[in-house]
């Protein structure tokens, strides 16, 4: 087989090695624009512990690479001038130049034809092969040439970043968060040789402009950045530049990676944000999968390339998704600057759903144990329950744990009801409970005791007079059985639902106040007002009419005892509204983003509701309940411990 590989980065070289190693008769040529010893970039990092695949694929290069590794397992977080160390995270670093040299040597000895300093301007001269591999990086000519086949989606992360080096080895992987008068500077630092480290520095576009970096030379930019981090570097130590330009991270993904004899791999096909440190590993794994598929299918190139794509696409997509979450985390990390150092570090570690409380416990049981005692109050105790079973105080009410369910007697710390209607017209369907029919509070009778019930008062608005949920959602009752509907405006909720009339706010306030009094008389100690999901109150918020919901809230707060907590269920779409609710005396926000309009779309996914809760909690400084595909206690532990919510609605089994 004749193979032309464009690009002598880790992906292209490693593929060449594997192809030659599997069959010496293959004619493999690698074409590279740069000289063999060109030194761009500093070290590369492998964040995953296991490099077993590399060991199996080509033992010789595996040994050469791992012998050159700088490996460490703790990770340091420098924040607020404190240092938190978390163990059990295996990282390895190697100089990019060293990695390439090792791969070049191995390829050369196997008889790969390496052509350096040849710029590829067109693919045409290379198409006379059985296989043409575009391993030509994020700016891939191959991908651009066949854009109609590969259908790339390109984007940019809004933050700015630059690669620097340092003239010493950081002891372990280190995150540094440094506030300056221009804004936040973050550095992700890792050693890759006894006297060298990589420092990737991240700043917002605003910080970049404030600091004048947009107009500085490379040298000036290096000096400014070094000054920012001088305390962390230590006296006399220096940062190093090498084409250290401030750029935006490019997002690349492609619908397809192959077409005829042409296939793309590594950064040419997909990028994953550097903050999860997987780019090089992904590229090498691509090479392994591609070489393996080609070996298996021998004569059937189409089958081999299809198999390669089938095997790799899902893995890559998962990592890309995790890397997007990670990139967004670092871009909005200032949201967490109120956190104490242990929680800040915990949040950083669990920023993507890949790492949960259980994973973290397996990595560093001591850190988690210390964290748990801190979370439980840090009053000198040596053991504490996991975060999900740590009590929560809301005014004078203490909830036994952080789990919210919709039924009593199932072990939850808090039970929240479905919408309880303030008036018969406010019912969603004939089965909706009316506040006048509400049974007295069952508090104390729940299994395990201490189970509190929160009554969620609301008015269905345009979503009233529907058939029961056993049939479906938003299916209007037959006309004869309907009651009159009201909403902020005379607009139907959905194309198939009836048009309501305009609501008169004044009597509604009285109805909510009377209902709140009734709830209190029945002995309930937690009350929530439902301002969510396009129901009556939300129909005002959807029109940016905050006045009426606020008046209603204030009126209810007035009659609801000052020592008891008041909650609101609402979306995270307007943080301004949430701040106003908080100012009006709301203690707890249940963040529900779905169904505000009939065609609103929720992006489901594991713990999908945690991000919105996080935003509300940490941008508005209010306690929250997260809802959305939270299915295990491990997930509750993770969300609560990371300060993304104070309570979680756990899906029933």
């Amino acid at each position, binding site marked *: 087989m004749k193979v032309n590989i464009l690009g002598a980065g880790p992906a292209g070289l490693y593929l060449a090695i594997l192809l030659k190693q599997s069959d010496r008769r293959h004619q493999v040529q690698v074409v590279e624009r740069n000289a063999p010893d060109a030194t761009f970039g500093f070290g590369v990092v492998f964040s995953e512990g296991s490099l077993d695949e590399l060991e199996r694929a080509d033992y010789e290069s595996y040994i050469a690479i791992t012998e050159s590794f700088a490996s460490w397992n703790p990770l340091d977080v420098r924040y607020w001038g404190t240092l938190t160390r978390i163990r059990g995270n295996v990282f390895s670093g190697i100089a990019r130049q060293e990695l390439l040299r090792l791969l070049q040597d191995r390829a050369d000895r196997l008889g790969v034809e390496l052509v350096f300093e040849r710029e590829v301007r067109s693919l045409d001269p290379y198409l006379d092969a059985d296989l043409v591999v575009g391993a030509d990086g994020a700016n891939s000519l191959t991908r651009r040439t066949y854009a109609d*086949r590969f259908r790339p989606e390109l984007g940019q992360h809004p933050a700015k970043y630059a690669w620097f080096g340092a003239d010493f080895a950081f002891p372990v992987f280190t995150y540094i968060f440094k506030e300056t008068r221009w804004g936040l500077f973050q550095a992700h630092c890792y050693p890759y040789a006894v006297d060298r480290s990589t420092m990737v520095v991240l700043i917002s576009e605003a910080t970049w402009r404030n600091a004048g970096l947009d107009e500085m030379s490379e040298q000036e930019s290096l000096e400014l950045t070094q000054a920012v981090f001088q305390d962390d570097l230590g006296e006399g130590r220096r940062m190093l530049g090498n084409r250290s330009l401030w750029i935006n991270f490019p997002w690349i993904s492609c619908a397809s990676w192959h077409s005829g004899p042409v296939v793309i791999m590594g950064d040419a096909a997909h990028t994953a944000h550097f903050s999860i440190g997987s780019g090089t590993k992904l590229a090498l794994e691509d090479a392994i999968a591609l070489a393996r598929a080609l070996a298996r299918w021998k004569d059937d190139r189409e089958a081999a390339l*299809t198999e390669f794509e089938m095997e790799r696409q899902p893995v890559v997509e998962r990592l890309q998704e995790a890397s997007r979450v990670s990139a967004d985390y670092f871009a909005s990390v200032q949201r967490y600057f109120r956190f104490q150092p242990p929680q800040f570090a915990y949040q950083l570690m669990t920023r993507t759903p890949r790492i949960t409380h259980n994973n973290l416990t397996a990595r560093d049981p001591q850190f988690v144990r210390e964290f748990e005692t801190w979370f439980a109050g840090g009053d000198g105790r040596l053991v504490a329950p996991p975060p999900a079973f740590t009590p929560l105080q809301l005014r004078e009410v203490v909830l036994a744990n952080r789990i919210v369910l919709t039924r009593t007697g199932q072990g939850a710390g808090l039970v929240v009801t479905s919408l309880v209607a303030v008036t018969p017209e406010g019912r969603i369907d004939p089965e909706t409970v009316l506040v006048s029919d509400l049974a007295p509070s069952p508090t104390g009778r729940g299994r395990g005791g201490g189970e509190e019930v929160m009554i969620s008062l609301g008015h269905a608005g345009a979503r009233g007079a529907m058939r029961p949920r056993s049939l479906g959602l938003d*299916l209007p009752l037959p006309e004869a059985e309907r009651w009159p509907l009201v909403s902020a405006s005379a607009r139907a909720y959905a194309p198939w639902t009836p048009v309501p009339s305009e609501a008169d706010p004044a009597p509604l306030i009285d109805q909510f106040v009377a209902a709140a009094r009734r709830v209190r008389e029945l002995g309930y100690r937690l009350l929530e007002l439902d301002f969510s999901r396009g129901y009556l109150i939300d129909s005002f918020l959807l029109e940016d009419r905050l006045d009426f919901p606020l008046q209603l809230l204030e009126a209810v707060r007035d009659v609801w005892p000052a020592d008891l907590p008041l909650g609101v269920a609402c979306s995270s779409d307007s943080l301004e509204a949430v701040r106003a609710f908080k100012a009006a005396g709301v203690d707890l926000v249940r963040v529900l983003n779905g169904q505000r309009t*009939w065609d609103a*779309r929720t992006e489901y*996914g594991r713990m999908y509701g945690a991000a919105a809760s996080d935003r509300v909690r940490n941008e508005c400084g209010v306690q929250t309940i997260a809802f959305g595909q939270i299915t295990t206690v491990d997930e509750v532990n993770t969300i609560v411990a990371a300060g993304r919510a104070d309570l979680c609605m756990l899906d029933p089994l």
Partner: protein
Amino acid sequence: MKVGVGLPTSTPGHDRELLLRWARRAEELGFSSLGVVDRVVYDCWEPISALTLAAEVTEQARLATMILIGPLRTTAELASQAAELQELSAGRLVLGLGIGARHDDYQAKGVDPSRRGRALSEQLAELRMDPASPPLLVGGGGPAFLRAARFADGYVHGGGPPRAFAGAAARARAAWREAERPGSPQLWGQGYFALGDALRGADYLRDYYAFTGGFAERIAAANLTSPQAVKDFVRGYEEEGCDELVLFPTVSDPAQLDGLAEAVAA
């Protein structure tokens, strides 16, 4: 988990005799349901007609559209067709609806595809509120999860390895929770098979899915061609909580059914 089988209504060389034999034999072998697909611009039978024919020669098997492209029919037309089949089959119809994947089907029927999501939702609302409505399923991605929770009894997945089904099933359940529907959604899955050598049925799948570009190769590569592959697939779906898995043929060969039943039972 129940296991059903697709009817050969779009495989090369499909005809009336084959369909009748296939439906009879499938029921004898104990397959729980007979599934059909829906495509306009392809050599294939209209799904309700095919199920009507199958209804005549079967007694037990449920008759499922997986999916029928709802917006291509007027709701009145679809409702009366469904009601009729429901009566003819003594209540065995399961109506799975979706927007389909191809614009040319819409062009062929003179229907504007730009409003197809909304059209399907309105259609589902109307069907669901009709007391004579058969059980409903919704297929598709994105908005389909909440659409299933809003109007239907469950969700029908479009096919793929068990892990892909698991991801979609988790979303369907999440939407069900979001909609505060009691209980849990019925979850249907589907796969392709052609027992024989590794390339059997691949040409048909490449052709049927040609509109997806490179993706057709992937679908062809995933065709279940060995009893072991069928067994692993069935077990995988069962483990992920599938309620009913329907395996569609990719060749027009009635001998396939016995082989499939054996592989499933093994």
